[in-house]
């Protein structure tokens, strides 16, 4: 016997409460990433195989510092959100899903901070 009220049954599983924010953040970061990714590929063609001095000369220009940091922020934010969705789709046990998502989020944060620090260190030791 179904003990739920008519309203409860009509609502079904209902909303999970936090999907919209995730969805919008995924799109905004994607919009930012589209031009930033092309900028990065174009730039990478310049420092492929370059020595440190060449890379540093490039990475210490203000415009490149700003764009690189924006690229890093958008990339880790977007990738972290995206991988969360993939895990939610494929990992069945709730505890394993939650641990995996947490690991992705905090690893992305760690990598992002390490990358930004590196950009600044290269730029400010020029």
């Amino acid at each position, binding site marked *: 016997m179904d003990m739920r009220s008519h309203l409860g049954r009509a609502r079904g599983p209902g909303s999970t409460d936090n999907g919209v924010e995730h969805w919008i953040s995924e799109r905004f970061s994607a*919009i930012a990433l589209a031009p930033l990714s092309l900028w990065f590929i174009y730039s990478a*063609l310049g420092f492929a195989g370059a*020595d*440190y001095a060449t890379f540093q000369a490039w990475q210490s220009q203000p415009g490149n510092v700003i764009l690189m940091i924006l690229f890093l922020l958008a990339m880790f934010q977007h990738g972290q959100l995206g991988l969360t969705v993939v895990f939610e789709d494929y990992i069945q046990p709730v505890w394993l899903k939650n641990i995996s998502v947490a690991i992705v989020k905090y690893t992305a944060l760690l990598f992002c901070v390490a990358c930004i620090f590196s950009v600044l260190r290269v730029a400010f030791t020029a």
Partner: protein
Amino acid sequence: MASSNRPLSPHLQVYRPQITSVVSIIHRICGVSLMFGTVLFTYWLTSAGYGPAAFERAQAVMGSWLGQLIMFGFTFALYYHTANGLRHMAWDLGLGFEMTAVNKTGMMVVAFSLIMTGLTWYVALSGSGGL
């Protein structure tokens, strides 16, 4: 919470492959691959943060044949995922939902990413990329 009867994502193995489904799963594979790419990217950029010796070691790793092969894959993944991401967001605006359009833009994404990957690597290997 009645979580047990929430809908699941479609199971890939019961679907006959079509342009739509293949283009779609490649988008996901490229997205996940690019996340692996961020690990390598972090290694490379933090090496630069450590200084010249570490950076030049990382440059040698990236420049090895294996490194270049992996970079080639990431180049394709990034072009593909970017182009198809724009296609996704056109759908989000309600554009391009007719089957003919969906198939056509799917093939355009594939063609675009193959051509751009080829062009990028032509420039990279001919050494004419400059800043």
